[in-house]
């Protein structure tokens, strides 16, 4: 029996959680920028959120099977766009070539590719139909994700490169990798990382120093170590109740680096304390749980895999960003989804969530 899609099936609870998250984000973006020359970021972010919600509604109406059908086209387009960055169309920003500029249109292909990869991985494993994976299947999956990863790594944008990885992991894990295969992969991966680290050929000493500076920030007090140190001070300075909006001395005194994007959680923690930070973590937890529930009730494997890809990326970004802010992880430049300022990030997050909505709304369809 076929039912038409109705917004009655829209995940209003999820939307409420998302909007709460965005509300907090807006307050904090405003607080960290209002007294700087970036004072326009607050209103801009509001616009991005509004646009994101609209996009989410639009994509919730698009059948995700159609999107999966289009995904290969998107994938090849993404690869081309990533390659185009290295042509004169490319545009420098934030110490790397990440943008394509054609006339008035600026476009950051790496975010788009992230979305396309979620679809491609979901499509790939759904087509395998949940059977046991062969090594051939696994290598194909690696190739699928590996090509765009290498292109992004070349920009160089280490942070975004890393966010592609959880898509692959989630796909393999949920797609049916066996324990034996996983063990072999983990052992090989670990050996590879250790080899690269100790050979000293691929990573320059300063890059290593940056990656380890979070363990002992004083080793690099004016570079990444400085950022980690100021971030830790900001978080700790907040105490239990926080210093209040626009009152964080670390945040307002520019001690905290880029407090409206990568370090927004540190700024938020300083101004709203342990209680506020815990509240945000709880919101994230509910959002993720809600998404997983939607994955569980999805009508088919491809829908579940799409949502779980989104969950994987979001979880990874939260873990790495918050981990960085509190000194658990190296500084990699990964923004906090739904919190950090930035149009691309907001729009693609909502776009992905729109697809997830569609999966939920179609759970009784077919």
């Amino acid at each position, binding site marked *: 029996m076929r039912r038409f899609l109705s917004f009655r099936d829209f995940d209003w609870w999820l939307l409420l959680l998302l909007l709460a998250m965005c509300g907090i984000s807006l307050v904090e973006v405003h607080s960290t920028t209002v007294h700087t020359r970036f004072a326009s970021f607050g209103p801009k972010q509001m616009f991005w959120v509004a646009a994101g919600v609209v996009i989410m509604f639009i994509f919730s109406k698009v059948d995700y099977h159609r999107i999966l059908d289009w995904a290969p086209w998107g994938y090849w387009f993404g690869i081309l766009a990533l390659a185009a960055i290295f042509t004169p169309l490319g545009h420098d920003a934030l110490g790397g070539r990440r943008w394509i500029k054609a006339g008035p249109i600026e476009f950051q292909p790496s975010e788009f590719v992230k979305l396309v990869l979620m679809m491609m991985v979901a499509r790939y494993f759904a087509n395998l139909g949940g059977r046991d994976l062969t090594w051939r299947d696994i290598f194909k999956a690696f190739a699928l994700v590996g090509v765009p990863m290498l292109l992004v790594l070349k920009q160089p944008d280490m942070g975004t490169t890393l966010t592609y990885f959880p898509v692959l992991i989630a796909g393999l894990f949920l797609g049916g990798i066996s324990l034996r295969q996983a063990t072999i992969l983990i052992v090989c991966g670990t050996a590879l990382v250790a080899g690269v680290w100790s050979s000293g050929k691929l990573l320059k000493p300063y890059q290593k120093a940056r990656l380890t500076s979070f363990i002992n920030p004083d080793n690099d007090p004016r570079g990444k170590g400085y950022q980690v140190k100021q971030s830790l*001070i900001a978080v700790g300075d907040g105490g239990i109740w926080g210093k209040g909006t626009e009152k964080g001395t670390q945040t307002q005194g520019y001690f905290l680096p880029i407090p409206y994007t990568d370090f927004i959680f540190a700024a938020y923690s300083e101004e709203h304390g342990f209680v506020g930070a*815990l509240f945000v973590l709880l919101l994230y937890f509910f959002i993720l749980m809600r998404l997983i529930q939607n994955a569980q009730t999805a009508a088919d494997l491809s829908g579940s895999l799409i949502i779980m890809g989104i969950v994987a990326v979001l979880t990874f970004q939260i873990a790495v960003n918050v*981990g960085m802010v509190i000194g658990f992880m190296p500084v990699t430049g990964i923004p906090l989804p739904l919190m950090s300022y930035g149009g691309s990030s907001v729009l693609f997050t909502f776009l992905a969530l729109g697809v997830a909505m569609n999966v939920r709304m179609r759970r009784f369809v077919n």
Partner: protein
Amino acid sequence: MASNGSNRGEKLPTLKLTVVQYGILLMMLALAGGLWRLQVLGAANFQQLAEQNRIRKEPIMAPRGKLFDRYNRLIVDNYPSVSCFLVREQSHRVDADLPLIAKGLNLDLDQLKATLKHYRSSPGYQPIPIKEDITADEQAFIAAHKNELPELETIDEERRLYPRDGFAAHLIGYVGEVSEEDLNNPRFAYYEPGDVVGKAGVEETYDALLRGSDGSRDVVVDSHGREVGYLRTQHAIPGQDLRLTIDNDIQRAAELALGDRSGAVVVMNPKNGEILAMVSHPSYDPNEFAVKINRADWNKLITDPNHPLMNRAIQAQLAPGSTFKILMSVAGLQEGVAQDMKVMCNGGATFYGHFYACDRHHGMVDIEHAIPWSCDTFYYTLANRLGIDTIAKYAHEVGLGQRTGIDLPNEATGTVPSTEWKLKNFHEKWFAGETISVGIGQGAVTVTPIQLARYISGVASDGHFVRPHVVDPAQLPEQFRQSLADQFPGSGDATIPLDPNTWTIITNGMAGATDPTMGGTAAASHLEGVDFAGKTGTAQVASHAALALMGHGVDTRPNGWFVGVIPRRNPEFVVAVLWEHGDWGSNAARLAAQVATVYVNKQRMEEHNVLQQAGASKPIEVGAVWSVSRPAPDGSGSAGETAELHGGHFFLDLGAPAAAPKALASGIFPVPDWLSASPPRFKEDSH
């Protein structure tokens, strides 16, 4: 679950999703644990670190005490100065900004690049000084480009504003950054690195009073060091203003009289030791190193063969020539030898097989004539009769061979030879023949101008000698006065009982020296109607044999000396002039007469020649900063007066009708009416 109507039939295994859920929960718990550690357990520690991050102790410089002349006329002032620094860390495009910076700050672009290159290896947060003492326009440029050029920073400081052209430069001294040596000296325990301290003259001696006490302020800063607020302020205690004993008019006259000749002039009140004027030429402009002097300029100053930094008035140790004959006369008369001594002068005399020349054939000479005529033959004979140790004894009594104890640093002692002195310094016996030249102030004997002024005025004051000083001790705290006495030991105030006859004969002899009818050596300095008495000295800089050896290129002309007093007995004015290579003491006497004339005319409230000449020559520029009270702009009257700060240079112009003062070079300070209308001081009340 596996077949709930889906046409494809496959579903994700619930177990795996549950694993993911628990994984996420675990991650969240770990993050929450991290937050707990930082925000709950570590809060106190991190809050302290955050405080340290943002609070910086910033010194508030105490304004240095000003210097005034004896009539409270300003000599040395401070002016607010702004310096510009560049902090590379604060901009990513410093190199691209340089042309704009160079243009806005009126700097040479290549030089600016060179400056930055020089600091290339220093850390990026270290401020690089790119321009000191910037103008209001340049400040406005920096303020206007705060966003485009965040790397530019300014620092306010107070700078010393000294009179131009080296007016009283040696007496005033100068300030500079404290040296490593001084920092290690326990006497200067209150100095801190980077402090600006007095380095010479009054600035050095009275540094402890002038410097005041710096305050500090707790400034809230952001990570760029930009000030965003203040917490606690401890105000600075300004340095004490000092009134010098200098009379600007006399000082001016002395500067002009000496002109560009090399030498020194000291004018003192013999009754109390107050220095009215102290000039040493060649001079230097202390403004050039009000805070810091560049190395090239400094090297030029210290390697200059004319020693411009040397204060000749207290540091030049030279043979006194005939001015020493006053001491010889004192010794001769007090010992009862000179009274009845008559010497036949035939242009010299022979002692111990050597012929000692006199510049003239004076015929029969007694003590009354020996002083005005300055007959060498007489004093050769007297010296021979007295012997070196008697001469040395009297020389020591009048304060020669030791510091006078003037309150200025690095005073020289001069030399008084004696048998003991020679044994000690040369391990040799004194030869009687050496005494003969000492009798006319040659040989090993050396004095400083300040010693001469003190000793001759002391003799003229019936044996009452005074300690010269440039700052009236009455304005000093008791403790400081005490330490000053310990710090500057010297002959100080002293009285030696003189025989009344000694006093009369010598003072009359000195009066004769300036008396044309007596044929005195200083007849040219005779002042009509003024009891101006004195003694010339013409001191050879080397022996005749040495002169022949030195040959050309070295100035071998003798030094001219003159010491004059008004009046001859119990004088109220003494002037000592040293004209290096001035050929004759009589030339020095002419200079002294000019200074004496100004003094006398000032006493008479008359204008004089020297000062009219002054009008024609370059006036002395003096800097000043003053505040002018203005009613509040709303016109509410006396309730809300505001003080407006003005500053500028004006001219110490005593002779000519008051010239319109010029504003400071930048033209930013208005000059008030009262200054341009100010008449020369001693025109105010003529006749």
